[in-house]
């Protein structure tokens, strides 16, 4: 962890340029995967498939973008997938009971945000290491969701609500517009606001951050709350796209979200990474899984491949950084 102090002393500008190079490499990798898939499969370059890839990537991105902020502070949020499941089930119930999608959306976002806030409290006030605190939260949420749903499935939502996840606007899926909006907000927040820069500073060197007057605990609370709220947003998109909610929908979401963050070049040790990188990470992961799908590889292979990608991404990241120093 000592080599991080060196990075903390660099002015914020040099973060950006170094990150720009990292993002460029990853864009190249994404293009390369596209080229390979275009050769291997005829249907890859069809408009339908490309829109499908973008829509899938946007779902991963929503969860991963909030997670990026957490990882930037050298923390981790393992509860995001379980949070999506609980928020989706509660939001779905509210829509069924009240008939009001707006109320359901608000409840979903609030549920996600509250869970995130609880994570933040465990990490800051109770000083539990984030990966253990959020891992405990994962199982608490899992238990709550299964208990709440009691094996039931919520099904059938108003047509207007379903547009959010499955509708189109000017030929593009609506989640893709949301993706662009949150990509913009996330990038602006992280790179161009004082709070964003403070988050980088906390991840690079928490002691120096505290000594220079940054309210570390409050920023950490914010970061975990944002991560939870983004999980809440993802739950709404899921609910609207699948038109149903079950207790187990979150189980396959956490690992891909973490993979997207790490492929995107955000360092597990904090202080280095960008939200845009995470977008590219989500894109690369989705392309790989989509490619496997097109080449008719069984979906059973997906966790194996995602697991290998997570390890490779961290390993490569650590290697390149070690060389850079």
């Amino acid at each position, binding site marked *: 962890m000592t080599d991080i102090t060196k990075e903390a002393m660099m002015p914020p500008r040099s973060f950006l340029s170094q990150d720009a190079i990292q993002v460029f490499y990853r864009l190249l990798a994404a293009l390369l995967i596209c080229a390979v898939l275009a050769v291997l499969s005829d249907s890859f370059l069809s408009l339908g498939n490309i829109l499908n890839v973008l829509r899938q990537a946007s779902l991963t991105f929503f969860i991963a973008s909030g997670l990026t902020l957490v990882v930037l502070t050298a923390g*981790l949020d*393992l509860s995001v997938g379980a949070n999506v499941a609980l928020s989706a089930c509660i939001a779905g119930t509210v829509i069924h009971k009240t008939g009001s999608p707006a109320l359901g959306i608000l409840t979903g976002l609030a549920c996600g945000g509250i869970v995130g806030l609880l994570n933040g409290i*465990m990490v800051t006030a*109770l*000083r*539990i*290491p984030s*990966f*253990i*605190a959020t*891992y*405990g*939260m*994962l*199982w*608490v*949420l*899992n*238990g*709550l*969701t*299964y*208990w709440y749903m*009691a094996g039931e499935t919520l099904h059938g939502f108003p047509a207007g609500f379903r547009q959010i996840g499955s509708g189109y606007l000017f030929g593009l899926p609506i989640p893709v517009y949301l993706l662009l909006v949150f990509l913009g907000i996330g990038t602006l927040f992280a790179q161009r606001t004082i709070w964003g820069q403070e988050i980088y500073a906390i991840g690079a060197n928490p002691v120096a951050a505290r000594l220079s007057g940054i309210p570390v605990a409050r920023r950490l609370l914010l970061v975990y709350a944002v991560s939870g709220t983004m999980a809440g947003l993802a739950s709404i998109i899921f609910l609207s796209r699948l038109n149903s909610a079950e*207790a187990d929908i979150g189980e396959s979401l956490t*690992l891909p979200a*973490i993979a997207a963050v*790490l492929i995107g070049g955000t360092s*597990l040790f904090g202080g280095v990474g960008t939200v845009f990188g995470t977008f590219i990470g989500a894109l690369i992961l989705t392309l790989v899984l989509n490619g496997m799908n097109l080449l008719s590889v*069984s979906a*059973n*292979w*997906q*966790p*194996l*491949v*995602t*697991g*290998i990608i*997570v*390890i490779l991404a*961290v*390993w490569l990241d*650590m290697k390149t950084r070690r060389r850079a120093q």
Partner: protein
Amino acid sequence: MREAAVVSEPNPLQRIPGVAIVLVLLIALFSAIAPGFLSVANLSNVLVQSTILTMLALPMTLIIMTEGLDLSMGAVLTLTSLCVAIVSLATKSMLLGLGAGLLVGAAFGVANGWLVAITGIPPFVATLGTLGMAQGLSLIVSDGQSVVGIPHSVRDIYSATLLGIPVPIVMALVTYAAFHGLLYHTRFGTYIFALGGNREALRYAGLSPNKLLIAVYAIGGAMAGIAGLLMTARMNSGHPTAGLGLEFDAIAAVAVGGTSFERGNGWLLGTLLGVLSVGVLRNGLNLISLPSSVQVASVGVLVIVALFLDGLRSRA
């Protein structure tokens, strides 16, 4: 955090109250509210059901003592359980099945250790990656289906008795004795304390911390292999999601048992009491007809409370 481990020698007396009080409180609570909890049949049921967890929680204690973590244990247990089922089904031999489970488990353990020690990837991410891999392999080898029709020799392990004691309990006791001997009465055990407390000292003593770390994770994987045999025997089949999440119960048992996540202090007896606490909690909630989802959530709360208290103690 390293200095703290050197200065404060673990004082078991200070820790006994924590986990023992939890266990006594849980037993008192369920004796009062759960009918039939105190019956001999139920208590022996709690013990037998805790055996698989014991086999995971003991090596998890060693891993956490090295300031590590193994999130892949439940998924690896699932995979080894499937290996036991598939191989014993094909060869009609329980021993070959156990061998296959041990081999696959140890291979995952070595991979975990290699990733943590050699590449330096933080343990919780390295083992999260191997969790995905083990889960994927479980789906692939079983094609998402249960493996049924395994030979009696496997199933009998769970129901057989030795001198009137169920074989799983005998296996758990032998495992505990082995781990106790390993940690407290061998040089390797002393090195494990040093891995968490003072890695530099190991280097100065001319030892390779990396090899030791790989050995610790390999033990964890191998134990998941043995636990896989018990799991297959208990369910009389192999199932591609059977052990998922069990690593969490193991981490809970270790945390409740007073092993610290940051100071290289470990306490095996505490882990054993922690295993029993988790077992009693799940059994008691089951008796008062609360679904397994509530059990999972309460184990989560148990961990968070235990870690909070651990944090308080480390600051005190």
